């Protein structure tokens, strides 16, 4: 299988370690992964604000970078959800439809496609609070949302349970939105910050040493809130834990 790595723009710029962990993890699992170097962004920052016309260029660049692959894997449920559900600013050619169907968030690629549950190289002897982004939870359906009455499941949790020493804490609101929301984080700054503060406090009150998520954007926002409040909270992407980060 031909697998391409998609590193979302803000991970490229601010969190290269998450991109590296993703690449190394996929390589550990025996895949030969390409990183198309002309990639920029999936188009979500514009499209999420309704700006379809402005999203079209980025979406076209995205498709031209990834059209030649069987799988496009990125460590961000939010970006992947944009590609899968909302990459509609450009004409829906065969390549566009192919790329949209081939796009996988890292968590679901590991869980559903590679069907891997063991990460023998990984050990994370810490209490963690799992933050599922709303994209992961309700749009990509990686876990049961608390308001839906159905047999509980959680793909990220199932993966993390393959890590030695990890311990999960239970925040009082298991899947409350952290308030990042893309441009929402600045256009609705006051509400966004309050949501972030509440989310971090809930995890800390439950005893979390780390907040772990498949979405770095949620964590960037929560960390920004936590650092400003001088709270002792640490944040880590699921790819880093699964790749063997110890702290």
């Amino acid at each position, binding site marked *: 299988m031909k697998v391409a790595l998609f*590193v979302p*723009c*803000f*991970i*490229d*710029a*601010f*969190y*290269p*370690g998450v*991109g*590296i962990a993703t*690449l190394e993890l996929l390589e550990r699992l025996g895949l030969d992964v390409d*990183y198309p*170097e*002309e*990639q*920029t962004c999936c*188009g979500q*920052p*514009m499209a999420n*604000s*309704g*700006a*379809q*016309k402005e*999203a*079209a*260029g*980025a979406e*076209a*660049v995205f498709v031209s970078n990834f059209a030649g692959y069987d799988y496009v894997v990125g460590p961000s449920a939010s970006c992947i959800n944009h590609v899968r559900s*909302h990459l509609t600013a450009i004409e829906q050619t065969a390549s566009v439809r192919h790329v949209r169907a081939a796009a996988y968030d890292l968590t679901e690629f590991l869980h559903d496609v590679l069907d891997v549950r063991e990460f023998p190289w990984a050990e994370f002897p810490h209490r963690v609070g799992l933050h599922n982004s*709303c994209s992961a*939870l*309700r749009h990509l359906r990686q876990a049961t949302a608390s*308001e839906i*009455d159905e047999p509980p499941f959680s793909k990220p949790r199932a993966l993390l349970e393959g890590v030695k020493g990890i311990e999960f804490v239970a925040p009082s*609101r298991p899947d409350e*939105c952290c*308030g*990042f*929301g893309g*441009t*929402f*984080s*600045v*256009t*609705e*700054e*006051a*509400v966004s910050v*309050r*949501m972030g503060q*509440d989310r971090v406090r809930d995890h800390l009150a439950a005893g979390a040493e780390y907040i772990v998520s498949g979405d770095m954007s949620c964590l960037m*926002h929560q*960390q*920004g*809130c936590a650092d*400003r409040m001088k709270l002792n909270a640490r944040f880590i992407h699921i790819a880093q834990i699964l790749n063997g980060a110890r702290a």
Partner: protein
Amino acid sequence: MSKRVDHAKAAGNFLAKPDHVSFHDRRLWDLRLKRDAQARGLPEWETLRDLASGIKEHTLSHLAQYVEQFVDAAEGNGVVVHFAADAREHNEIVFSLLSERGMTTLVKSKSMLTDECAMRAHLEPRGIVVMETDLGERIQQLDNQDPSHMVVPAVHKLRSDVAELFGRTIGTDPANSDIHYLAESQRMDTRPHFLRDKTAGMTGCNFAVAETGTVVVCTNEGNADLSANIPPLHIASIGIEKLIPRLSDLGVFIRMLSRSGLGSPITQYTSHFRSPRPGTEMHFILVDNGRSERLAMEDFWPSLKCIRCGACMNTCPVYRRSGGLSYGSTYSGPIGAIINPTFDLQRFSALPFASTLNGSCTSVCPVRINIHEQIYKWREVISARHETPFVKAEVLKMAGRLLASPTLYRATIASLGGALKRLPNFLLYNPLNIWGRQRDLPDAPVQTFRDWYRENRKQPR
């Protein structure tokens, strides 16, 4: 030109009162949890949602037929039926009914429709005393505010606020914020009005049954029954989307309405109004006020399925922290974000952005309205019609150009110091460092992922 509702600013004002925000958030989250427990108590819950959605879709797609059937049945029951194309017509019909009979007071139960029509503002200058008898709605009336929630209209207030308000308006002890004392005082204040002369009664309508011509009203205080059953004239205001075909369909909705909104199995009162008592009059006003137009909107008609339960508001993390008044309309929260733009796109163009698109509203909606998808769709409409604020629109254009070009993108983040200053500007619409007011920025990494990749994967390993 209508003035744009500034949700973010109003929410900021609400957030500046931490006690209010904490209480509001906890109170509504508690309703969400009670709703979850009730839903889990019914193994057929998801099936009920399918049925409710299906019944509403069917009714809305045969609306003319069911309106006709309802009107025939109601007239056969001795009810006089009126049609109001818009809010003004509705208010004029109500005023005519009252003035022709020499009525000077209108006692009423809660109705979002009469708030939507701004009926009080029409009647009061014309000499009609309008008395809201639902506790929460009365509180809001006395404070000259819109309801902040469809089911619990004064939920944004602490009981000390109510004590102060009642002390100022109905003469209670402003230092006594005991809930029972306040509720009893409000009852003692409103109830005598039911018995006075020249007083008419009004209710809203939760469900209008086409088969029988019945109006069904669900309340917890019994005030709708007093409004309908004591005065010699009962007026019921009915949005045309309230129709359901048969009495046997009603149970599907009754089982979900209060479970979804308040987390209680059923409202204390579920009253069926079918025909006037001997010697009295019953009038139904069927109101369109933009509903037919909405029904023709390909992406937005499903909002007409709404039964006004409030579940989407209770679950909404943004609503819980911004308060209903910040939406600047009768309808707030997620449902308000998709209904209000159908009335006035410019005025309400900020509301679809008062959302993180988390989607929990859609998950709890008992009639399966795709609320968060409609919010997303409204953003496209607002952008396409150039209703995006100028600075944001310019930033989005810049971001679009930057991210459409691998060369420009690379040049922008080439210097990481520069990237920290500049990339958030593009990606986060951050010309005034709004991000940094209450949040820190991420630490600057030593290199971008691509630079690392070139160093570590381009050479043979």
